[in-house]
């Protein structure tokens, strides 16, 4: 029982740290409590893990308190600068205003949450990659009490992989005081829950409540996402940070409020700190933001021009969080696995095979329900709406991600892993919510007052 109490305390503290990050970013307090809690969890675990990483680089041993102590000055500064008012409380009256369809969707989403939490907390870590990499490294960090890369590429299995999940699990083992690989899995359902809350609030900015719930329901019907929320892989946390970053960019495009760029930059950095692919996503988003600013400056002269500061508001947090591990790996001579270019003219023969696998993984496996079909229908029947800024941005991002994987399979040794299908499915998982966002954004009429977040 004591370890459960300690686990809850650790999670509460991580939310507290995340809340300090949140109030440092946003001046306005006009967000609903659920949204603040969800975002605080995502930012809090990121802040704690990044602190652990810095401690590890400095050769300081891991324990429960050390990352918190590192975060403490920042938290005190944030709280002194802006005292939290806790104005928004849990308002249950909203439940009474739900109609039949909304209640049905809430029930279906809640059923899925029950399934995810029970599955995650009943079964200890058992999945292959967790044994092989993520959970193994967490166990090594916990028992060794430090991070030691002195042996270069041989330091750990898959040394080049980033450390967000291993360090987070290690911190929770330290918090509980025991190696309990069943309770530690709570982080994954919490990632899922936080993500769907943030996702819902994003959709609510642009659509009615029913469509926000519908979007979350569509997301929850994807068996692959549900499955990944119950095992301890890094793909689902990567998806969470990656999509959070994209949503923040879209909110900035709509509102031109720089705090969203800072949030997006932090999320993109944390994505790069979660899994190797996150670094590529981060650079894609930086490039898209740059192109957007360039396009606005060149062609939309009547719109307010953006200073270089806007770009830096995204770029600086993204690079500060996302790049240190990459730079450190370079310094230690640790190369990224399977990334060396493996291209010749013969490789062009791979193209039909890659297309066949993409087609199969998108449309002919049960991992995504019918999301890709719905996306195709949504695009084909709403071509005019694709010119809208936010939909165009989402669609371009999706195409860029698909192109990234296409070129990875074409140009690198990742092609060998195309056949089993697991790599491709997991890659799609990292950005599949984009499809849901596009479906909801194209099919349904926008809200008249997009700036106001309500419940």
């Amino acid at each position, binding site marked *: 029982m004591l370890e459960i109490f300690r686990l809850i305390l650790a999670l509460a503290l991580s939310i507290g740290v995340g809340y300090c990050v949140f109030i440092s970013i946003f001046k306005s307090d006009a967000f609903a409590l659920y949204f603040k809690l969800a975002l605080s969890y995502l930012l809090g675990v990121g802040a704690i893990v990044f602190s652990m990483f810095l401690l590890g680089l400095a050769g300081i041993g891991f324990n429960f308190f050390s990352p918190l102590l590192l975060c403490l000055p920042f938290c005190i500064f944030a709280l002194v600068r802006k005292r939290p008012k806790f104005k928004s409380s849990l308002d249950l009256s909203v439940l009474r205003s739900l109609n039949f369809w909304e209640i049905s969707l809430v029930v*279906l989403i809640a*059923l*899925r949450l029950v*399934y995810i939490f*029970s*599955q995650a907390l*009943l*079964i*200890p870590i*058992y999945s*292959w990659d967790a*044994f*092989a990499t993520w*959970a*193994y490294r967490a*166990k*090594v960090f916990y*028992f060794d009490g430090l991070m030691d890369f002195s042996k270069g590429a*041989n330091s750990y*299995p898959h040394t080049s992989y980033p450390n967000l999940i291993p360090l987070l699990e290690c911190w929770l083992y330290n918090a509980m005081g025991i190696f*309990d*690989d*069943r309770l530690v899995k709570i982080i994954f359902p919490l990632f899922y829950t936080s993500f769907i809350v943030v996702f819902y609030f994003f959709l609510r900015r642009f659509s009615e409540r029913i469509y926000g719930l519908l979007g979350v329901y*569509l997301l929850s*019907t994807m*068996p*692959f996402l*549900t*499955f990944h929320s119950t095992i301890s892989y890094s793909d689902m946390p990567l998806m969470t940070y990656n999509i959070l970053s994209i949503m923040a960019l879209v909110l900035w495009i709509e509102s031109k409020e720089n705090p969203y760029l800072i949030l997006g930059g932090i999320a993109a950095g944390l994505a790069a700190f979660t899994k190797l692919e996150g670094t590529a996503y981060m650079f894609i988003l930086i490039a898209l933001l740059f192109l957007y600013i360039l396009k606005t400056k060149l062609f939309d002269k009547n719109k307010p021009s953006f200073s270089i500061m806007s770009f830096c508001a995204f770029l600086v947090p993204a690079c500060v969080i996302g790049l240190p591990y990459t730079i450190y790996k370079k310094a230690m001579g640790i190369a990224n696995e399977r990334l060396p270019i493996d291209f010749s003219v013969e490789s062009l023969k791979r193209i039909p095979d890659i297309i066949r696998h993409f087609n199969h993984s998108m*449309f*002919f*496996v*049960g*991992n995504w*329900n*019918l999301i890709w*079909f*719905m996306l195709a*229908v949504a695009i*084909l*029947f709403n071509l005019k709406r694709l010119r809208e800024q936010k939909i165009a941005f989402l669609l371009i991002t999706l195409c860029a991600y698909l192109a990234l994987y296409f070129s990875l399979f074409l140009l690198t040794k990742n092609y060998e892993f195309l056949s089993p299908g697991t790599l491709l499915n997991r890659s799609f998982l990292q950005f599949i919510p984009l499809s849901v966002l596009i479906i909801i954004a194209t*099919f349904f009429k926008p809200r008249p007052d997009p700036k106001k977040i309500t419940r």
Partner: protein
Amino acid sequence: MSAIYYPLTPQIQAFEVNALPLIYLNRVSVFYYVFVLAAVLVFGIIIREALFNLKSKRTFLQRVCGHWKWLFFVMALCFFLIDLKMLSFQRSRLIFHLKNFSGKSLDEARSVITGYEIYEFARFCQEKIPQAQSVKLFTSDVQTRYKQLAYYLYPLDARRVVPLEEVDYIIIFHARPDLNDEQLRQFRIFARRKDGQIILERIKRK
């Protein structure tokens, strides 16, 4: 040295298969639902537009495309049916896992998910082998069982690459060690949990 290699019995393999907290129907094909229903719908729309709506000023293609809402409706229906099927599958999985895992201690649960053998053997090794010793691990397959056993063995670091001369213990799980007779003669049987689950210890040099 007496026999050290015993292949995994079918019973153990069956245990592993039954115990694995199996996942979901990864290969559920959505082919049938979508295409049968959508094809029926599209066929119906084409027939209707071709035979009964001839006075409209719009082209045939425009008229067919005008019915996207129906297509979307059918797709949503398929979507919901597939989801109901998945919910039912998840419900049965949950019942199965509640039966197998609820009320179990952490050790018991780990034992169940690793097929009742790997985790028990890892605990056996940890009890027998002193910490901070150099070990080498051989398992019946180098993917799943090797990774599982190495995970549970830690802090005994079985995944560290060490030359054989520096190895103090060899852990064998239903495997034929990749060693020649000369190398094997440097070790003796130290402990045996079951046939095929053996720890070899280096014979101390005089």
